[in-house]
């Protein structure tokens, strides 16, 4: 977890629009980037839309909304998941980390973010938050990451500008794999 989880942070209540439908609403309490957020949410509100529209954390991007593109990836209790494939009520009592939670409070970039800058790992930036969250989970994991494993994680997000190679170079540097020999994995071996 981030340092901020050790601070005592006040609970922040985010507002919801007035109920426009008869279905149930739910009171949820979520740890988001170390801050305790309370809200009343509709049953059908997606986690992505909750983060963007209610908590005003618009760094989590919406791409395909069916789990394919990876732009909406966030960390749920430390593991990368597609936030477009979760309902907001599902994260009640859990911990969510978004791209806004990566940099230090003084604005200093995380090592993975800095590597993306150093290696031109982003261009338009749309896919970047998803890549950063997935790769941050690898960087913070205790067991070492192999190059093959990195490549399979890079498969999981779409980038349409950089051609992936600069993202791969950034990730290799940040993960300490810069000097490991290996070509990008080809397919799934069939």
């Amino acid at each position, binding site marked *: 977890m981030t340092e901020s989880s050790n601070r005592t942070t006040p609970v922040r209540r985010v507002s919801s629009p007035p109920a426009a*439908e*008869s*279905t*149930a609403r*739910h009171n949820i309490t979520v740890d988001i980037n170390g801050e305790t957020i309370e809200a009343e949410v*509709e*049953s*059908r*509100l*997606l986690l992505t*839309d909750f983060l963007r529209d209610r908590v005003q954390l618009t760094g989590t991007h919406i791409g395909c*909304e*069916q*789990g394919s593109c*990876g732009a909406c*990836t966030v960390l*749920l209790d430390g*593991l*990368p*998941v*597609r936030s*477009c*494939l*979760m*309902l907001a*009520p*599902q994260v*009640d009592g859990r911990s969510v980390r978004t791209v806004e939670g990566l940099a230090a409070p003084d604005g200093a970039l995380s090592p993975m973010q800095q590597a993306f800058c150093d290696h031109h790992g982003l261009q338009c930036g749309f896919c970047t938050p998803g890549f950063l969250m*997935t790769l941050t989970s690898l960087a913070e994991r205790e067991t070492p990451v192999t190059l093959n494993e990195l490549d*399979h*994680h890079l*498969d*999981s997000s779409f980038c349409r500008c950089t051609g992936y190679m600069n993202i791969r170079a950034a990730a290799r540097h940040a993960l300490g794999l810069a000097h490991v020999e290996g070509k990008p*994995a080809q*397919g*799934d071996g*069939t």
Partner: protein
Amino acid sequence: MKPSPLDYVRATSVDHAIELLASDNDARLLAGGQSLMPVLNLRLGAPELVVDIGRIDELRSLEFADGDVPATRGVLRIGAAMTQTEVATHPDVNGRWPMLVAAIAQIGHPQIRNRGTVCGSLAHNDPQAELPAVAVALGATMIARSVRGERSLSADDMFHGAFTTALEADEMITAVEFPEPSPEQGWSFREFSRQPGDFATAGVAAVVRRNAGSIESRLVVFGLGGGPTRATLIEEALLNAAGPDLESSVIEQWAATLDPVDDAHTSARSKIRHAQRLLVEAVAEAWERM
């Protein structure tokens, strides 16, 4: 908001979940949500009630039962709220049920497997899904509960056509049991997809073993449109085979029984060719491991 209006209830126990299923016939279970959520977001389905079973304690279990006598194999029992990642990364599963681990590695991407459940994939029976085929190949048993009681369903009886199973509308899978493969059993899991993480164009889960001088096999093909389907013609041809090489006439005879349809990416003919190649490769690999 993308899904149609719905009510969400987080079930606190299996009893709670099956009561909700029995009381509202337009309810859907949400475990990992990696199939249901795209359906809701695209409004291909609009249930009135979504019952979240993902945090029911009694379903969050992975149990290993040893056989009663040395000759009996162990059993892996996977609770319905266990994710694919949790199952595949368990060291005992990795060592003793290698086909299950190999198949899970082919499901979507890590982010999908971090949420998607083993039992959810079985209940959904997507024709392109890996786990129903693995369940048939390994002879798994599903445990189903409803307010009317509990019953066991063998994998052979469970899977019907695409997205259809033997489960009744008010039933839920609470666990799946995979018998431990015997040491002399060879296995292979192979699939072709257009790019890593995509749904399979075609795939094969194969198990072969020697038994009293003949070769018993379970060769399960998936991705071709129906549910997981055993290649019985090939299984019969292998019974008295001396090696894994199959007569091309037998393969052609089997291929003629396949009936996939063209889709936007792959013609039916091409799917059959993929299935043929994968089956031949899988039999050879499983034989080598036997």
